[in-house]
């Protein structure tokens, strides 16, 4: 009986988290605020549901699978939130009138100015750290990605990758 009560409370809590996501999706004004509502309460919601399942089942052998399930969600949900958020910001899918503060905007503006400068001169940027790689500077971002060693003057290359 006691377990039934616990299970019931946990499941209703989890369902309310899903409801929070739903209402947030429907009511929030722009993409990025919807994203907060959509991706985050699910972490707690899934945890509550998995706890309910564990309590109801009552076997310890189930716990590792459930932990694994939750850990997978912990690992993946920030990744998708970051990717969607970044895409949303870059493609201007947010309402700037709702922002009280935007500290990324001037950084982007400065980077855009730097890019315009770089396009005027045909020479590659001297800070690009060519000797560290040897050979031509890779342009494909996938080539530059994490496997490449970090050159001391890596900021130039890094900036280029950001703009790509």
């Amino acid at each position, binding site marked *: 009986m006691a377990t039934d009560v616990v299970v019931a409370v946990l499941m209703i809590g989890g369902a309310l988290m899903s409801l929070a996501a739903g209402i947030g999706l429907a009511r929030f004004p722009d993409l*990025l605020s919807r994203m907060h*509502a959509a991706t985050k*309460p699910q972490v707690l919601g899934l945890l509550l549901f998995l706890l309910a399942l564990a309590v109801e089942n009552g076997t310890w052998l189930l716990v590792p699978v459930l932990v694994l399930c939750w850990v997978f969600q912990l690992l993946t*949900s920030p990744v998708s939130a*970051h990717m969607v958020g970044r895409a949303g*910001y870059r493609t201007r899918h947010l309402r700037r009138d709702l922002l*009280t503060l935007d*500290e*990324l905007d001037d950084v982007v503006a400065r980077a855009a100015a730097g890019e315009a400068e770089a396009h005027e001169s045909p020479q590659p940027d001297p800070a690009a750290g060519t000797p560290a790689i040897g050979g031509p500077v890779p342009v494909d971002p996938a080539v530059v990605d994490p496997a490449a060693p970090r050159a001391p003057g890596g900021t130039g290359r890094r*900036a280029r990758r950001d703009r790509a």
Partner: protein
Amino acid sequence: MSRQRIPLITELPLVVWLVLVWGALWQDFGVGNLAFGAILAYVVVNFFYLPPVELTGRFNVLWLIPFLGRFFLKLVTASAEVFWLALTRGSRLRNAVVAVTLRSHSDFLVTATGHAISLIPGSLVLEVDRSTSTLYLHCLNVASADDAAAIRRDVRATEAWLIRIMGSRDDLAALRAEGVRR
């Protein structure tokens, strides 16, 4: 293949994790199953090559437990807050994009901090500047500069916790030098 060999000690955490995943998925932690899982994990790690994650070689479990407690507390309160905002505030919501400069320059720690911050509802990592280890966060319901300052303090506190758990010795020394601030 021209890639360099990775010493076994670097890939050991990954192998251990894969073995645990294997055991959990079969719901069987018997010796035979784990041994087979270890063989599979070794093959996977060596044939499906990933760039090694540079861990810092420190891991302090004593700090981990209070960190998890703080994390769960924040998870619950912040989820409830998002729910409340969705119900009451709806479309009259003010947000902000806040830049937070972190202390550590280790990719691993910046990633871990960003992950922990992203998991707590109300903040979201938009961009990362790796050269200055600055996180650009999109935060829900920020009305004033004070709120933004509070978020900055909170993120740096989260980073301090993570440094205490698994930061490099240099980062830890820098944190100590900064004085005991939470």
